[in-house]
């Protein structure tokens, strides 16, 4: 009888010693690679995004490091907005270091060959500048010619080409006429975004005074360039003279501080790149898991047969693991090199936005990151779906509906823990902050939780309010959402996540681009005239009226500095390293105005009262712009002492104004009440609106002839430049966001294909009992439409929340979104879900039922 058991003797083989699993992996894969297309595509896009963005970050950092000296042109730059006096000059002379000088200011230029004019940045140079890098000119000796002859000028090459100016043409700047000796294509400290706004014009320093531009109120920036022997000499020089330089009212910049400044400037860009990389990779991971899930499901019967003929669960697992692992490595390599290719392309897109030429060195660390990450992702995110292969019951060959046994194995539990940790660790690595990593991770978890909740709520609502009286197609498509074993929740979460991410990117893009909302609306000023002297005020206003231009504002401007904040002298506050007031806020020159009203088109009082002159000793009550009170750590009721051209003036904060800076300029940080500053030395700014270009040209020509020191800003020109720049920036953002969108679509395709198997049998049955192709197509489309619509709406609603959180706490910018574009995303995702659903079902829809039944039996 059955009273004995023969012990089974079999040699356990691992993946490395079992040659059969390698042979089977190859045999199974050789005609099967297309089935793993989704897997490879997900991996390639995810890894390409990470590598491209990481490589870009590395290249930017590397270029900042290597270009810093050339960006500065010297080791130390001493700067200030007042002419270098005896005291500071003797300090600088005592350093015994080689020196060069620069003065720059805004000015108008008149091109005498065509009588056109433009606002420019006038740069006066003296000495051996630059100490590092080169001034690249056409002709090559233009800089030597400029230094030899005081009546010569060099122009930025963009300016020269814009106004068709060539060598030996003449230009008028202020009262002087200069001969053009060449154009400048590159100069240390120049280039970048600012060149686009105000192109530079270079003259010898000795010619500056003769222009007559440096008058009272002119905003001139003075610089002294110093060259030291090395970094140690820079440090010792500043240790010795730094305090004295500051005491004289000047600041200084070093190569290190310039690097830090540039790094700070690119911080938002890094953050955005990191976010994109995170999203693209997470979508890639979902794509990998989803595609391997589909693959493992397709292989179920094959595994059952192998199990019948004696394969162990691990052997079956190993066959597919080997395929996924090797394909993962291939995908990672391809993804890394695609990423590198894109990284080489991005500098071309960014070239006008950064002040140096980006290198195209290959950052191999990014490639290594891509390879390691790709391998981890392909293994980690395929283990769970592949683990199910181990548990396929051999009985499946007899009964296809046989359920796999799915014990909670150690492998599965370990994989789940690692999968949960992966986004957190990756986000922390990308942002270089564990807290940011946790923030990203929690955001993702909240999004998934939210999507799951909405999916469950939707199923509940469909069950509760099922439209029994609706048409056959409508009823059948809706019933599809809650048929047994349907994956509605999973699909909604996956598709919704794709919609959520695409929509979040859109919100962030809108918010970033919305930072520059510029004037140009009806009735707003688009031409600003500044540096008008008191005695010129009436003449300029008359000239405007003669040209039939409306004088929108004539605003007085008084320059002053802070000498005390809440009773503490500025020098004490500057020396105090424990306070939070930045030095620039204490030492800068403030340009203030006076009036008794709000500038209503751009200002709103958000705290306290408007500026006013009260009776009694403490009579001057001013208002401050929102944000600046935080910088100066003051609030309503606090006191300040202004140094108005040598005269101390105590004032109190009466209120805080919210200022929309770009609107209807000029706008001010401090506004004084009337009756206080009228007798102080002041200049005036006026604004008007000119819509006709010819009228603008004529007015500018008359202005520069009669009032050569008055500068004119044409906001239309700036608006056009900003629009062009942001279109370019938008292109870069969209280009980078495309990674995430493509990966999202792959996930979407995977999710829909995943549900295909469940729908096939139902469609076959409907066809068998007489449903027409049109009806089945309609049912399929409507069902996927519901799925896409609800997922997209859920994703979009959640994205508004995440976008708000990200803009407020991560990018620290104002939240903004475009409802129409959000709706377009909903429609787009719905349409794509329908299309992908239909595309994957078309075989089932168009094939005769018997053929399908045979295939499925």
């Amino acid at each position, binding site marked *: 009888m059955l009273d004995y058991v023969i012990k*089974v003797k079999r040699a356990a*083989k691992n993946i490395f010693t079992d040659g059969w699993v390698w042979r089977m992996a190859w045999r199974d894969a050789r005609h099967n690679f297309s089935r793993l297309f989704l897997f490879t595509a997900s991996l390639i896009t995810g890894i390409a995004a990470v590598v491209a963005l990481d490589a870009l970050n590395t290249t930017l950092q590397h270029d900042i490091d290597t270009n810093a000296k050339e960006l500065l042109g010297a080791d130390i730059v001493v700067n200030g907005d007042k002419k270098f006096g005896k005291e500071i000059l003797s300090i600088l002379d005592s350093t015994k270091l080689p020196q060069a000088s620069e003065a720059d200011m805004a000015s108008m230029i008149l091109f005498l060959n065509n009588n056109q004019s433009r606002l420019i940045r006038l740069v006066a140079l003296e000495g051996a500048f630059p100490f590092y890098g080169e001034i690249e000119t056409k002709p090559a000796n233009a800089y030597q010619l400029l230094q030899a002859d005081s009546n010569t000028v060099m122009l930025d090459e963009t300016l020269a080409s814009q106004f068709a100016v060539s060598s030996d043409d003449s230009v008028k700047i202020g009262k002087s006429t200069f001969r053009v000796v060449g154009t400048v294509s590159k100069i240390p400290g120049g280039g970048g975004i600012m060149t686009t706004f105000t192109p530079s014009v270079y003259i010898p320093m000795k010619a500056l005074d003769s222009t007559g531009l440096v008058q009272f109120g002119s905003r001139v920036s003075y610089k002294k360039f110093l060259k030291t022997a090395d970094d140690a000499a820079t440090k010792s020089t500043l240790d010795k003279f730094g305090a004295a330089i500051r005491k004289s009212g000047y600041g200084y910049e070093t190569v290190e501080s310039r690097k830090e400044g540039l790094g700070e400037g690119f911080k938002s860009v890094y953050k955005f790149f990191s976010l994109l990389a995170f999203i693209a990779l997470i979508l890639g991971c979902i794509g990998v898991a989803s595609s391997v899930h589909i693959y493992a499901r397709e292989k179920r019967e094959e595994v059952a047969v192998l199990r019948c003929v004696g394969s162990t669960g691990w052997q079956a697992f190993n066959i597919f693991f080997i395929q996924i692992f090797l394909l993962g490595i291939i995908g990672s390599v391809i993804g890394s090199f695609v990423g590198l290719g894109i990284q080489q392309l991005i500098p071309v897109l960014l070239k006008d936005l950064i002040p140096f030429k980006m290198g195209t060195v290959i950052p191999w660390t990014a490639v290594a990151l891509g390879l390691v990450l790709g391998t981890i992702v392909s293994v980690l995110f395929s283990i769970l779906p592949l683990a199910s292969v181990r548990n396929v019951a051999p009985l499946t060959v*007899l*009964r296809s509906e046989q359920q796999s046994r799915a014990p909670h194995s150690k492998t599965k539990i370990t994989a789940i823990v690692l999968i949960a940790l992966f986004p957190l660790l990756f986000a922390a690595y990308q942002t270089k902050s564990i807290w940011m990593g946790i923030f990203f991770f929690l955001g993702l978890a909240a999004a998934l939780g939210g999507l799951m909740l909405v999916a469950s709520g939707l199923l509940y609502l469909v069950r509760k309010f099922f439209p029994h009286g609706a048409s056959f197609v409508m009823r059948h498509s809706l019933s599809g959402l809650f048929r047994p074993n349907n994956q509605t929740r999973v699909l909604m979460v996956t598709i919704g996540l794709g919609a959520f991410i695409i929509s979040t990117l859109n919100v962030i893009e809108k918010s970033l681009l919305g930072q520059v909302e510029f004037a140009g609306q009806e009735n707003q000023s688009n031409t600003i005239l500044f540096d008008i002297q008191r005695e010129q005020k009436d003449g300029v206003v008359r000239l405007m009226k003669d040209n039939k231009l409306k004088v929108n504002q004539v605003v007085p401007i008084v320059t002053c500095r802070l000498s005390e904040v809440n009773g503490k002298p500025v020098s004490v506050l500057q020396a105090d390293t424990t306070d939070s007031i930045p030095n620039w806020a204490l030492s800068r020159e403030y340009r203030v105005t006076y009036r008794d009203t709000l500038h209503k088109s751009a200002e709103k009082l958000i705290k306290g009262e408007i500026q006013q002159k009260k009776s009694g000793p403490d009579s001057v009550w001013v208002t401050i712009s929102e944000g600046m009170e935080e910088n100066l750590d003051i609030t309503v009721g606090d006191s300040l002492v202004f140094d108005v051209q040598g005269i101390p003036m105590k004032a109190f904060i009466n209120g805080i104004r919210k200022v929309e800076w770009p609107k209807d300029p000029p706008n001010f940080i401090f506004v004084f009440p009337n009756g206080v500053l009228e007798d102080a030395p002041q200049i005036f700014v006026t604004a008007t609106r000119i819509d006709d270009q010819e009228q603008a040209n004529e007015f500018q020509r008359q202005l520069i002839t009669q009032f050569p020191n008055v500068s004119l800003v044409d906001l239309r020109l700036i608006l056009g430049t900003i629009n062009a720049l942001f279109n370019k920036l938008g292109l870069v953002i969209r280009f980078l966001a495309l990674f995430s969108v493509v990966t999202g679509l792959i996930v979407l395709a995977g999710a829909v294909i995943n549900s295909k198997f469940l729908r096939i049998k139902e469609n076959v049955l409907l066809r068998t009992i007489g449903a027409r192709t049109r009806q089945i197509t309609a049912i399929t489309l409507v069902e996927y439409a519901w799925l896409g619509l609800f997922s997209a709406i859920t994703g979009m609603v959640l994205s508004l929340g995440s976008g708000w959180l990200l803009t407020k706490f991560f990018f620290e910018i104002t939240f903004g979104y475009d409802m129409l574009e959000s709706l377009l995303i909903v429609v787009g995702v719905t349409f794509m879900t329908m299309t992908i659903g239909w595309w994957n079902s078309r075989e089932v829809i168009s094939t005769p039922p018997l053929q399908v039944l045979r295939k499925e039996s």
Partner: protein
Amino acid sequence: MSTIVLQTENLTKTYRTADSSLTVLDDVSFTVEQGNSIAIIGPSGSGKTTLLGLCAGLDTPSSGLVSLMGFKLNKMSEDDRAYIRNQYVGFVFQNFQLLSTLTAIENVMVPLELRGERNVQGKAKDLLVRVGLSARMNHYPSQLSGGEQQRVAIARAFMTDPKILFADEPTGNLDEENAHHVTDLLFGMNIEQHTTLVLVTHNLELAEKTSRILRMKGGRLIEDRSNSLTLAKNH
């Protein structure tokens, strides 16, 4: 004395759900000796396929015992049962169950390769010649007709020189001509190799070719009779 290759004792299979249970096989006992051929017949839902699955170690019983070649299958792990199947068992299924990504010859080679054996191509070729597919060895299943696919499956089943062959409706998906061809092949090779054959079928004509018929109904074994005609013919 004949060797017992398969023995079941009080074999029961019950599927439990949250609020009910369904017994699909109820207290089935029988033995099969080496070289015998038996047919399991009965109406749909009578438990034939469940019984086949349990006997072949594709599933485990809720209670009772199964012994295959002396191994108590219900006390073994899934991987140990897989090993037993590989060593002693061959299968032929109604839906052929060939691996679609492998050629005909590769499908036949798989069971021996699983044992770690090399140079198995010669034997696979011989078997494919034996089943009349010498010209189709390098074709993929999708390039073969149903009858040809089933012949590949028979060749694969005999590749390991199994002690026992389980066949589930082997002619169920074939036309009459192919069905005859496959039946002749199956029984012919069974006799040649002195293999034990366990056959599940609805086809009484096919069942009559075996030496013993087990009739199932409602999960119970209601008849176990010898087919004297076939016995006489086989001996």
